[in-house]
């Protein structure tokens, strides 16, 4: 049950410190502090590899109510460096509940903080952008000055988070049409959607070469989501550029941004990104609106030549999707596999398989 007198602090690079109660593991870690506005789906978010290198704050204040279950995993472990909530439920009630949030964080050696004004932090991020931060849980005393000092030199702009997030060896799921999923930190949701559509999914490491992919003779290639700056993993740009035109490609989130880089486009860092389950995206061709799950800190700001803008964000008009008819490439910035979030755009998996 409730951790005994675990204290916690959240320290921002600008020196702001929030003191609260700790839960989860007793640990100190650093990361880019980001917020997610989904009101459900904390288990999926915690296990989403795209949060690698980040500290995740949930804007919904009551987290943990339905516990942790055995199915809603997007990967095998927790990826954020820390978890920030207004209140953590130390009991839970759900037919699928097999453990509690607190225990789950402990098992994954992830520190959590609760009992602080999370909204104040969100407003700060909104106004000043995402911020490098540290989260520390402790029982006695904490050397905050040291943490602050460590933060000063903290720089993750050139870090390749992808290599850590992806599989180390190829893995195969399902039976049917052969699809290669290049894993930059893929959510299991992508695999699930393909498998339910009768695909044999070969998950390959992010560093796989075009030859390695082609040698499997896939009917289609999927480029997954993943953490970090899309400009960093240049090996991925190369592979993607070489694969274009070999068979239909469908890319999600980081995969979509990598395509931009591979074909001469570019990305920019957003002030505080899009993280939530409520973003409206319009399909330019059909004018159909989907409410989408999003989790990205970068966006495509220059679409490569030969590509058409296919989807835009209704709110800030950022690029949400591109397509290249000649090369049979389809890419979206958001998460059609949902988990957590709305299922409105799952149809994209069908479209992709139709292209094959």
């Amino acid at each position: 049950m409730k951790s005994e007198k675990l204290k916690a602090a959240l320290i921002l690079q600008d020196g702001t410190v929030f003191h609260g109660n700790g839960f989860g593991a007793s640990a100190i870690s650093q990361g880019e502090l980001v917020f997610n506005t989904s009101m459900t789906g904390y288990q999926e978010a915690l296990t989403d590899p795209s949060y690698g290198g980040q500290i995740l704050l949930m804007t919904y204040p009551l987290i943990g109510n339905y516990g942790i279950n055995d199915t809603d995993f997007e990967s095998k472990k927790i990826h954020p460096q820390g978890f920030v909530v207004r209140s953590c439920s130390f009991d839970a009630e759900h037919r699928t509940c097999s453990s509690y949030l607190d225990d789950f964080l402990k098992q994954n050696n992830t520190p959590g903080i609760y009992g602080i004004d999370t909204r104040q932090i969100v407003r700060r991020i909104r106004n000043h952008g995402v911020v490098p931060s540290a989260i520390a849980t402790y029982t006695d005393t904490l050397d905050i000055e040291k943490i602050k000092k460590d933060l000063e030199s903290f720089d993750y702009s050139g870090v390749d988070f992808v290599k850590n997030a992806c599989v180390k060896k190829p893995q195969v799921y399902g039976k049917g049409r052969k699809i290669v999923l290049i894993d930059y930190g893929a959510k299991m949701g992508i695999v699930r959607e393909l498998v339910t559509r009768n695909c044999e999914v070969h998950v390959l490491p992010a560093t796989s070469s075009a030859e390695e992919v082609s040698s499997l003779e896939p009917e289609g290639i999927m480029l997954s989501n993943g953490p970090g700056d899309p400009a960093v993993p240049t090996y991925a740009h190369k592979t993607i550029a070489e694969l274009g035109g070999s068979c239909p490609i469908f890319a999600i989130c980081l995969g979509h941004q990598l395509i931009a880089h591979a074909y001469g486009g570019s990305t920019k860092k957003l002030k505080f990104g899009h993280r939530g389950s409520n973003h409206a995206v319009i399909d330019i061709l059909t004018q159909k609106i989907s409410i989408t799950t999003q989790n990205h800190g970068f966006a495509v700001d220059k679409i490569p030549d030969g590509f058409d803008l296919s989807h835009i964000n209704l709110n800030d008009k950022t690029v949400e999707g591109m397509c290249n008819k000649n090369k049979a490439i389809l890419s979206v910035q958001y998460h059609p596999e949902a988990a957590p979030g709305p299922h409105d755009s799952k149809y994209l998996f069908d479209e992709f398989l139709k292209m094959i």
Partner: protein
Amino acid sequence: MKVLVIGSGPIVIGQSAEFDYSGTQACKALRGEGHVVVLVNSNPATIQTDKETADIIYIEPLTAPVLEKIIETEKPDALVATVGGQTGLNISMQLEKSGVLKKHNVKFLGTDANSIEVAESREKFNNLMKEIGIPILPGKVVSSFEQAKQFADTIGYPLIIRPSFTLGGTGGGTANNAKELEQILEYAFRLSATGEALVEQSALGWGEFEYEVIRDSDGNSQIICNMENIDPMGVHTGESIVVAPSQTLSDADHQVLRNAALKIVDAVGIKGGCNVQFSMNQDTGEFIVIEINPRLSRSSALASKATGYPIAQVATKIALGKKLSDIKNAITGTSASFEPALDYCVIKIPRWPFDKFPKTSRVIGTQMKSTGEVMAIGRTFQEAVNKAIRCLEIKIPKINPDEHLNPATDLRLFAILESFRHGRQVEELYEITKINKWFLRRFEEMVKLEKQLQKNFTKDLLLEAKQSGFSDLQIGSFIGKDELEIRNLRKSYNILPTYKIVDSCAGEFEALTPYYYSVYEGENEAIPIKEKSVIVIGAGPIRIGQGIEFDYCCSHAAFALRELGYKSIMINNNPETVSTDFDSSDRLYFEPLTFEDVMNIVENESPEGVIVQLGGQTSINIADALSKAGAKILGTSIDGIDLAEDRDRFAKLMIELGIPQPENGIAYCESDALIIAAKIGYPVVVRPSYVIAGRAMEIVYNGAELRRYVKEAVELTEKKPILIDKYLDNAIECEVDAISDGKNVFIGGIMEHIEPAGIHSGDANIALPSMRLSDNEKQIITDYTEKIAHGLSIVGLVNIQFVAKEGVIYILEANPRASRTVPFVSKTTDIPLAKLAVHMMVGKPLPNLDPKLNHYAVKSVVFPFLKLIGTDIKLGPEMRSTGETMGIGKTFEMAYFKALLAAGVSLDHDKPAAFISLNDSDKEKVPELAGLLKNLGFKIYGTIGTVGSIEGAITVPKIGRGTPNALELIESGIVNLVINTPTKGGLSHTDGFKMRRASIQNGIPCITSINTVFELLKAIHILRESELELRPFDQYSK
């Protein structure tokens, strides 16, 4: 385009202020797009019937024939059917089915008639659900008991019965056996518009969830809010405590229901807003759809206020053909196409009228009994719950928890807390209530914190208590300190509230028109308004005696302040209302209306002053404490308020001013009371001091009744005396709404009650101008009003009640605040009293005013008797009506007839037949009454004692003494009007009581005042040959 908008009429249980809010939003949206709005509503206390809201306004009865005539005159191009509740929807469907709309080429805007038909018809809806693969409970639409019985034999009990096309679950119920099934069905068939009812398997104990959906005509749809009923299935969603967003659904569960909601709304073809109700068995994950509302609803109002998303405005724009992607979110300026994200927790608790109806069962179930609701916001569940409890403004009685847990009553939440206090366990309470254990644990934590505070009071615990929403008063009560001691202690610890913004996006974007709620953490987002500002204290939940009229006045205050160059700051907690709309005031605080909560805001904002006159008794009651704590009360001073409210001081003032009062006295104990009553002479009116809407007020006729009253009805103590007044019988009661700037007094109107004195003014039919008062009497009333206004130093509004008897005018009481007749008088005379009062309160002089009164207006009332089984419908000094209607005409008769028609009194029958049963004192009027009835073609029935001497009358035996008797005549529909004046005393086993209940349950008008019926019959007689007069309301005065 000219667009007809149909309102929802008087406030009734199940249909409250939310439709003024949604209708007003719709009008604003329509006019914003350049359309001309024709609005029809019979309720004068609505913002939508203000000249500023719509272009052409009819304050006329909401019946299909009336609407047909208005359509003939106005020739609208289109109609909005979905903003006037079930009333507006049903009338629109009648007009569609009878071909009126087609004939006049009026098209449905938004969700069309076919879609509405599918959504409302159980059979069609269930068939559609089967087609698209959405699970429903096994059920059958039946029109006879035999059909239902057959179904029951295959499915088993319990079964849920729902009549088709009714409001708030009226006539529904749960049957546990064949006998109950037969009883409920008999009632249900009678109330159903189609004579059909749905009999369904029960999902008792499953979780209940609601999804508010918006869909545009391109088929783009989104969820605005999902809500979870804390009370599981078996309690009507309108009767449930509701939390938003859902707390116990995983994302996977939520997406299952979200997908289903979108699929349903798409299949039905909604263009606008829709509410979808689900039930989920949380042990297995299986779910069913219960029903949908293809219109704006109470839930959509709640969802709108809970999220900040203006559902009514967006739905109206969609009805006009706009796409979601083209509409802007008025709160953030970003696109309206998104699903709101909350970073707080919202609790709704219904407000029930059982304090007014002590004899009715407090059990809540599938039929609505609540009149209103409160909404509270917190960052923790407990904080929201505790604040919501405070918003209710109820005294929580000492209860035996076991009497309230199952079946649930209005007090179940308190019974649960009490059970935890007694050490009962979550598991045990779950077995009894089936309330999700996550909620039960939170309630248990509330009690644990209580106990900790009692045991070891520390600064940290105090902060925790405040973050859990406990009030200073509550915390004080745990440790034997008073509210102010805790307040001061708290301040000395620097434990102060901060305010957070409701912005629809969890802080992701900046909010342009925010509203606020209090918390005890971190950053204060409510930076005080720099310009000069004024706080308006709202009226809280709609309840009997404090209804929409007060919200109307508060909204007007906000509008007036804007005109006067002040920033208006509204404090209220009623999610249904216009006053809590995001653009009604410059700043809105969604907060309880206690001294603590209001004073905190005063201290945060430092306004020029606080307006306490418009929020009914709620705001008046905290005025003194606010003033003592340093708030500046605008308008009539605290001393003036006290002078009016303190009977002793007021009585002395009246003597000084030479204004006669009915003989009266104050009793502090039973023997006092008996002595005073004997001295004054029976009958006397008795009531507790400081009351709202005559609560526990009675007329007693002898010492025995007085003793019973003192024993049963009130808590009579040294601190809480009762007031005893001489009851003036056979007198005319009249009242005045006036405004004053402290020097000059303007009388909005002298109104006359059609019923004799002794019936609460809120329940009386009221005429303006007065019909029976002489010019001399009116002059005296005018003089007295001026004297009293000066005597009380009124600045702003005052309502004074008088009785005229044999040329003498007696003062009954003066209320130094807005009354429920202010909107009625303002609409009749075209003088905005509440707005002007606000002008006076900020120091403006009374302008020259010229009321136009070349016409007549009558205010009539509606009662909740149909919903509250077991209550007697006879009227008395205790107010029991929920809402009001207005009739206007060039003649009094026309106005009166229309007011009653709007209130549902319809005497339009092929074979008119009346049953007369009068008490002894009215019996002498039988011949005159019979004459009037015969002239109108009525057959007359009665017992030999009443109608024996009337030629042509049919005499029948008393109830239980033969057949056919009154009950059988009423139930068989032979009689279609019952005139019954009750005998004195509160007995519920009399024949009269049975007759009155029977007529209510059979939907037959039952009139219990002889004056009402005389005036009505005269009006019908005069109007017999003339057409119903219908015109825009501002045309009557010309």
